[in-house]
């Protein structure tokens, strides 16, 4: 088992989830209730990482933040290096995980009947109070599902990690990249251990997602009664 790689993977997953949660929450809530005409375009943009090969995202990331680009040069001058660093990996990880975080939360907020918001307003609750006391408690299964999916997907990410992060031990070498290394080096014993660990974590995360989804459905069924 490559312990430093596991640490990098877990750190990346935790940070990605932490950064993405408020961002995804705001985006998802807005998408769930907005009547703005450009909503479909934003939704398509958010789903794009699901369809694009990770290499495309990695390529554009390198183009945007590499030493050759003005942005990359400016960042380098101010002491930031996004290419081949954990920070860069985090940034790209947040981008590719957007659909995994936003989708379940958006569905959860959209499932809250509008009449409940109105009932809250008529009862004297402000928009914020309605969000915190009515909408969020009803949408929490969606939040948990989004977090579980983000963790699982971050642990399994490979192509974009290799392109953006490279393969620096203790910094950007994640479990999936390390697994690739071990297979290349014919160390199948270690490969087996890591592959099994990834399967286990992903299975656990998916089970959680489905369990939360069921809780969410039950909640919706109650509201419709």
């Amino acid at each position, binding site marked *: 088992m490559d312990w430093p790689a596991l640490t990098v993977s877990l750190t990346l997953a935790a940070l990605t989830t932490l950064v993405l949660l408020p961002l995804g929450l705001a985006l998802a809530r807005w998408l769930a209730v907005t009547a703005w005409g450009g909503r479909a375009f934003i939704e398509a943009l958010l789903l794009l990482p699901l369809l694009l090969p990770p290499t495309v995202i990695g390529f554009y990331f390198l183009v945007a933040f590499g030493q050759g680009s003005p942005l990359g040069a400016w960042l380098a001058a101010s002491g930031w290096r996004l290419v081949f660093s954990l920070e860069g990996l985090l940034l790209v990880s947040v981008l590719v995980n957007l659909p995994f975080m936003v989708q379940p939360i958006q569905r959860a907020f959209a499932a809250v009947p509008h009449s409940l918001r109105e009932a809250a*307003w008529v009862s004297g609750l402000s928009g914020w109070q309605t969000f915190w006391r009515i909408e969020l408690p009803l949408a929490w299964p969606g939040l948990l599902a989004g977090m579980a999916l983000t963790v699982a997907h971050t642990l399994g990410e490979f192509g974009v990690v290799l392109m953006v992060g490279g393969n620096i031990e203790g910094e950007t070498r994640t479990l999936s990249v390390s697994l690739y290394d071990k297979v290349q080096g014919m160390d199948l014993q270690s490969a087996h251990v890591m592959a099994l660990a990834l399967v286990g974590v992903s299975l656990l995360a998916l089970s959680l997602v489905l369990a939360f989804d069921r809780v969410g459905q039950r*909640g919706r069924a109650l509201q419709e009664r």
Partner: protein
Amino acid sequence: MSGLQVRLRSASPIRLEAEFDCGAGELVALVGPSGSGKTSMLRAMAGLWTPADLQGHIRVAGQDWLNTASGVQLSPQQRRAGLVFQHYALFPHMSAQANVALAAGPGWTAADVQALLVRLGLGVLSQRRPAQLSGGQQQRVALARALVRVMPTPQTTSAAPGATTWPGVLLLDEPFSAVDAPTRQALYRELAALRQNVSVPMVLVTHDLSEARRLADRVVIVDAGHTLQTGQPARVFASPRNARVAELVGIQNHFAGCFFKDQPGWGRLRWTDPAQPAQCIDLTVVDKNKIGDGTPVTWVLNGEQVDVLADGAPLPVAGQGRTRLRCCLAEVLSLGEISLCTLTPETLPGQTITLNLTTRLLARLQVGAGGWIQLLIAPGALHIMPVREAAA
């Protein structure tokens, strides 16, 4: 002015022209078919429906909730509107107690909320969530949640009893449509009992005429966004202002005709069958000088004021001014003590009159389906309305 005053007008998205008042402690029912705009009116009062071109004012106890002339528009939070939603819209993740407490103002303690729930028969159920309650129980929680918005805060009451009337309005959006009939009857009684203690204007939206008749002090007939007629239920049902109102309140025996002036104080109502313009019946009516000579009218026959005689029986002495009409009993549907009878006049066989006659009377006259009887129609049994002008 302690009541509610509503004057609203909008052109889109819904054409609306609403005008009605509701006194403190009074219950006014907005009655109309679905899509008539009655729910939009209610939502406008709560501040939930605010189209850009809405004009007019909503005034509660002298305070403007909406006044487009002076640019006043209170938010739903600022209005003291207790709204019972059609499907209750209870917060599913909260107990009954928490649902009500959420809407209660700062003067309410948990014990006050519990006392209200006890009064509504929800005492032992207060810690249950909506999904664990029956439809009728959920409805009562929704009612309690609306009531805490409009009732005086308990502490104020004890400090100065009756001194402060809270400028609130209780709004009920089809509150009884989703419960079964026995539960509905129980809820009707509870609402009636509750009214003794609540002295705010109450507006009920319903499409159920009998419900409006039973619960409301006054009804407002709503159609296509317009408030057509306002009045006590018995009055509106007995004398609808025009043919559309008559149709909406489900009046039977509703016919077309033409009004002619006769001797001073008297008129003739010429009843015609549009399918056979050659035939007609003239009925004697009172001329109230409201309708011009030769005006096309629609009219209603109030079956409760019609006397029935055996065929061939002589006209009673007191029969002055009454029109005698020989009719065939086309159909008799016995409903126990009452028989629902369909009659066709001899001279206008294309028209039908529906009357509820006692089964005993039919037995006494020894007449059944296919037989003949005479109707004696007093002028007072005829209500004449001008044909409604095309909607403005």
